[in-house]
């Protein structure tokens, strides 16, 4: 919460008496809102108080002996910077219905669908309320606490059958089907009819509307999930009029790995390696966000040591560089320059990965951050290697990439003026990261709501103003240059000392409460929402994935463009499916 919180509170309480009450639970800082007035309140917050950016929508299942409520949690921010405003709406378990906020914040679209899919909360007046990560027809809402999966062992780890005697059985042997499957009692597979596709196409039909007078047929094209330029298992259903796009629906969930359900079973430290696998191109940024969220809950005990803070910044910025060169390389891939620019990009990335491998032990899945520091110090010689890279090689190589690509005629014609996102739309659709800043909104969490020690460094927030694919490409080069600036300062200032405050425990004590830790990841705002009830495992663990939410604006950007441009627009958003689907 910010210093302005008392003002907001008094305004809210005078304007909405009886609607808004401060959350009194220990460790909670938000407001509880009655569900009838939610849309009215959100409109007032957006238009009058400047909370125009809806960062995250999620739901929590507070199932216990005393309580059965479901709760929808909203995190609002101002696009001019500052702390969060947390609203929550409590809903009865047997009929969880709340008004949709899509009309106020279009960025709530996918997130509300996710809450519907995984938690079973119905959002009234939502334009297209379908399942998003699982398929239509899937039995149950998996993130509810009373829903058990096929391989369910126990609620929390470590499982008692594995420890201390080490008797391990294979889950397959306990499951009647020998597979990770479970069916309702008396289910007859021969009578099953799938509804998934028909509902998707019905949604597309709604978007298309009535045809004009001209005798013509629209064409539905499915791109993906196996398509060389969808950056993984991503699918788009596109309706075409000739070559022009008139409707587009992203279909995600092909890599839904149940990150959150597994995360709620793990202990806090257990989850660190899982966060690596969210955005697998930039695992250290994910570590950073998760560590921040848990440290916030831990309070003073979780504060990292001085050297660790610098190491974190160095690692996070190196990650940003490696992510952005990769993104640029593959954007060019999508433009048709197959693999040659990507080879230049991968060359630089490999050098950064060498540093990660030397320090953390792994090229990609670093699992390096700990609560209160990092796992280990740089080995001998690695700091010098980073210095060589940052002071000598990288600036030169980035200039090279710049020289090869920026004025290239094909790049210019294919990207300029394509996939425009206006600043108003970018904020409304909750776009973050390079996508938001390329639209002319100078919002960078490292500046707007600083975390770690970013307030000590001198750097500029990269902004471009056209909001087209070209700007989204060029802003990544700008950001790499700014990252190099931060790295130069951090490498000069890094102090000696311990890399972790206190000991390096396997189990951390996390007091009850909720926290939302967010970092400026390479793809955008990466947030971790954690609800703790004082036990060794998080009660609710939610990831606000930038790739996933940036996709909400995809349809807006594509309509009116040609089918060939879809690939470019998608490439310029830079999604990673591990994070999109989680």
């Amino acid at each position, binding site marked *: 919460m910010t210093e302005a919180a008392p003002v907001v509170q008094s305004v809210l309480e005078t304007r909405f008496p009886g609607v808004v009450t401060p959350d009194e639970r220990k460790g909670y800082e938000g407001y509880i809102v009655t569900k009838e007035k939610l849309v009215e309140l959100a409109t007032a917050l957006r238009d009058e108080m400047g909370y125009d950016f809806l960062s995250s929508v999620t739901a929590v299942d507070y199932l216990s002996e005393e309580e059965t409520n479901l709760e929808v949690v909203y995190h609002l921010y101002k696009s001019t910077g500052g702390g969060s405003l947390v609203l929550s709406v409590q809903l009865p378990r047997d009929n969880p219905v709340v008004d949709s906020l899509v009309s106020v914040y279009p960025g709530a679209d996918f997130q509300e669908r996710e809450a519907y899919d995984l938690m079973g909360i119905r959002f009234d007046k939502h334009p297209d309320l379908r399942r998003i990560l699982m398929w239509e027809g899937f039995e149950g809402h998996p993130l509810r606490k009373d829903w058990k999966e096929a391989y369910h062992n126990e609620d929390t780890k470590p499982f008692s059958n594995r420890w201390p005697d080490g008797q391990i059985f294979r889950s397959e042997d306990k499951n009647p089907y020998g597979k990770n499957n479970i069916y309702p009692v008396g289910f007859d597979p021969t009578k099953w009819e799938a509804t998934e596709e028909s509902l998707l196409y019905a949604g597309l039909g709604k978007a298309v509307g009535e045809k004009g007078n001209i005798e013509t047929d629209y064409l539905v094209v499915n791109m993906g999930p196996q398509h060389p330029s969808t950056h993984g*298992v991503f699918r788009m259903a596109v309706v075409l009029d000739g070559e022009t796009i008139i409707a587009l629906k992203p279909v995600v969930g092909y890599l839904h790995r149940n990150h959150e359900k*597994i995360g709620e079973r793990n202990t806090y430290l257990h989850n660190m390696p899982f966060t690596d696998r969210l955005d697998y191109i930039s695992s250290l940024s994910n570590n950073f966000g998760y560590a921040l969220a848990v440290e916030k809950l831990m309070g003073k005990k979780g504060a990292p040591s001085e050297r660790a803070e610098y190491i974190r910044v160095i690692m996070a910025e190196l990650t940003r560089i490696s992510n952005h060169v990769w993104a640029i390389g593959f954007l060019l891939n999508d433009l048709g320059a197959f693999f040659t620019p990507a080879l230049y990009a991968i060359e630089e990335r490999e050098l950064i990965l060498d540093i990660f491998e030397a320090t953390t032990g792994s090229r*990609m899945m670093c699992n390096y951050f700990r609560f209160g520091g990092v796992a280990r110090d740089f080995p001998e010689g690695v700091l010098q290697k980073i210095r060589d890279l940052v002071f000598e090689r990288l600036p030169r190589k980035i200039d090279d990439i710049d020289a090869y690509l920026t004025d290239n005629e094909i790049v210019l014609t294919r990207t300029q003026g394509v996939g425009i996102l206006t600043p108003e739309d970018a904020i409304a659709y909750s776009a973050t990261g390079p996508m938001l800043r390329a639209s002319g909104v100078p919002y960078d969490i490292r500046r707007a709501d600083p975390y770690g020690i970013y307030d000590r460094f001198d750097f500029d927030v990269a902004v471009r103003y056209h909001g087209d694919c070209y700007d989204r490409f060029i802003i990544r080069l700008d950001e790499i240059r700014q990252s190099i600036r931060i790295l130069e300062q951090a490498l000069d200032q890094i102090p000696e000392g311990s890399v972790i405050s206190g000991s390096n425990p396997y189990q951390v004590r996390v007091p009850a409460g909720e926290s939302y830790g967010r970092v400026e990841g390479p793809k955008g705002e990466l947030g971790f929402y954690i609800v703790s009830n004082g036990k060794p495992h998080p009660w609710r663990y939610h990831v606000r994935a930038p790739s996933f939410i940036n996709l909400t604006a995809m349809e807006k950007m594509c309509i009116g463009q040609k089918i060939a441009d879809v690939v470019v627009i998608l490439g310029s958003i830079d999604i990673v499916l591990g994070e999109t689907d989680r």
Partner: protein
Amino acid sequence: MSEENKLEGLNKPEYEITPEMRSNIAITTLDRIYNLGRRYSVWPLMFGLACCGIEFICTAASRYDIARFGMEVMRPSPRQADLMIISGTVTKKMLPQIVRLFNQMPEPKYVMAMGACASGGGPFKEGYNVVSGIDKYLPVDVYVPGCPPTPQALLHGLMKLQEKIDGESYFKRFRERKENIEAIPIPILGPDIIDPRDYEIIKNPSKSKVAA
């Protein structure tokens, strides 16, 4: 067997070739010459599922250079591919597409399970949307351990696949299997994933071999 020995092996079965003809003539079996061609022109399907797909791309890039094994010709179409590298977590939602892609590949085809997830579910095994190993549905030829496997590990896996190809017999693989090659039934997305081969067990779980 080193590379040199393999090429020397072309001259078996041993027929006496006069020294002046040795640079021009080699006598060998059909299997050997056929497999020699196949092992150096395995075309992988351009297909990445998750994290392992990134390491797969790195393997194809300049530092590790998969082209040394003749495998750089990645095909996005299954009709032109020989090798399917399952590079990442197989989810239930993706499974029907993977099986369909496999069915569309022409024989001889190979499947490589790259990484822990594809081999057995990996860290996500217990997840409700995760298939615990692609070998529950497709015949896997090579498993590559790691999470994700480093490019070196993937290259090792590819060399193992080449060894497997070396040991195959043209007649065994095609003549005898001809009748047996049939498409794998495509799983259906029901209340949970439904394998059409398991209809009986699903209707009657008590019939299954494993006790619940």
